């Protein structure tokens, strides 16, 4: 699985309340989450997300288990999220909704091109290639199916 996009930089310990606030959760309309994604962190981020790679600090996605956070980021058109570490429930959620995550400590320059290949296990930014831990075979299978729902649909 490969992809690339311009970097959008965010800091460390971004909790899921900041990704999508509790006041927007009670709906099944995904466009509401896309509209308000990262609103409490920085309202100017949302328009930058389509086709981008989010490059974050450590512990991205901590806090509440709300899956809407991963869905909002994916549906906003983000290609992948790169961070030195992710909170574990967010990690599972992202894979389950088909949002690629890359564990890597990148220095982020706003707008600079980030490219990755999860199968080969690398991520490249500003001409520098970093090797990354491959995901477990099960996670790769879920991700390449497009998420856990599709994974189970294919298995049936």
């Amino acid at each position, binding site marked *: 699985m490969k992809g690339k996009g311009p970097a959008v930089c965010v800091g460390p*310990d971004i*909790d899921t*309340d*900041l990704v999508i*606030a*509790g*006041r927007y*959760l*009670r*709906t*099944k309309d995904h466009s509401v989450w896309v509209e308000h994604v990262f609103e*409490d962190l920085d309202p100017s981020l949302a328009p930058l997300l389509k086709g981008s790679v989010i490059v974050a600090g*450590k*512990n991205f996605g*901590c*806090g*509440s*288990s*709300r*899956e*809407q956070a*991963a869905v909002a980021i994916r549906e906003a058109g983000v290609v992948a999220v790169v961070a030195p*570490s*992710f*909170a*574990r*429930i967010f990690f*599972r*959620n992202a894979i*389950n*909704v088909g949002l690629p995550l890359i564990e890597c400590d990148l220095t982020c320059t706003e707008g600079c091109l980030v490219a990755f290949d999860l199968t080969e296990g690398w991520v490249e930014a500003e001409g520098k290639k970093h090797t990354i831990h491959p995901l*477990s075979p*099960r996670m790769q299978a879920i991700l390449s199916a497009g*998420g*856990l*729902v599709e994974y*189970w*649909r294919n298995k*049936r």
Partner: protein
Amino acid sequence: MATLSERILGGNAGEYVDRKVDRAYVHDGTGVLTLEAWKRIGSDRLTDTTRLSMLFDHIVPANNSTTATLQHELREFARGSFMHFTDVGCGICHQIMSEGVVLPGEVVVGADSHSCTLGAFGAFSTGVGATDMAGIWLTGETWFRVPETIGIHLSGSFTGAAEAKDLALTCVSRLGMDGATYKALEFIGSGVAGLSMDDRLVLSNLSVETGAKTGLFYADDVTVQYLARSGQVVQPQVPEPCTYVEELSIDLSEIVPVVAVPHRVDTVKPVREIAGLPVDQVFVGTCTNGRYSDLARFARIVKGKSVAVRTIVVPASKAVLAEAIRTGVLTDLVDAGCTIGTPGCGPCLGAHMGVLGEGEVCLSTANRNFKNRMGVGGIIYLGSVATAAASALEGEITEPEVCR
């Protein structure tokens, strides 16, 4: 020679294992997405429904017609599927699961991050997302990466007005907000025997604020006796020598009343350092500190006096409320000027029943003080029940007096 997580999951730290889950629960919030994902998988199959629960707690009773319609659909589904279902007013999912449902040695998953609370019983209990849960509804199993474990050695006993919440916040500040990401915490040592089940539930509850998968206690006599009250007969778990990736020692007698200051749970200060800060609201409740012992302790401090600011008390469950009515604790709270909410999460997630206004300060007994969590521009300090009671009486953050 294994940690409790390794024993329960049947693998070594770092291994991926597929496990049947003994209990799986969702609430009115995550249930909506779980049902949606389960439908999208396109199967009408549900695993053994005696292991599944749907517990309404987050926005109960519904705050508007959108929520009400979502809840209506979910409720009809739960009833039709014959899974364990509790409706409006029954209480917080984790609390209900702690009232004689979850047993030592079980593998438990909840579609909520504080599912780690049940680790207090010596169960491997952790949070998953809604789509994960849909897969579990279908198959009854899921995968786990067996976590490495951080051993937290507790010794001594509390002195002064310190309580389990102060210990838990101190522990979070020592480990940091991501100090235990992907790992489990195990609370061990001579200090454990003196902790009640309610104390242990507080420590396990706050484990996730360090990033941990769960926070476990070995079942002992305290666990056995607590579960016996619900008619459950269980055996203690005997610890064996094992390897921890990291160890931390805390002497309970050195714990002082603390608060977590905005907007991080791991930024903790002694109450005395910020005493005098005016508050607009005090909130007592949640899956951290909404149990009967919490309400009783709060009532003991405010009884016969009047709270100086609006004080919202939300029992964690119907059983807690019933006990508070039976013993007169509820009357003491109402007489002191407290407002009582429907058993459930209350204003913890900022959806209803006590949302904060711009710039308002709340001293809360909950577990998260993230920016805007209880309302846009609201400012949250997290503290113990005793600190909440002392602060409610003064209208400002106040160091609690010894009350045992």
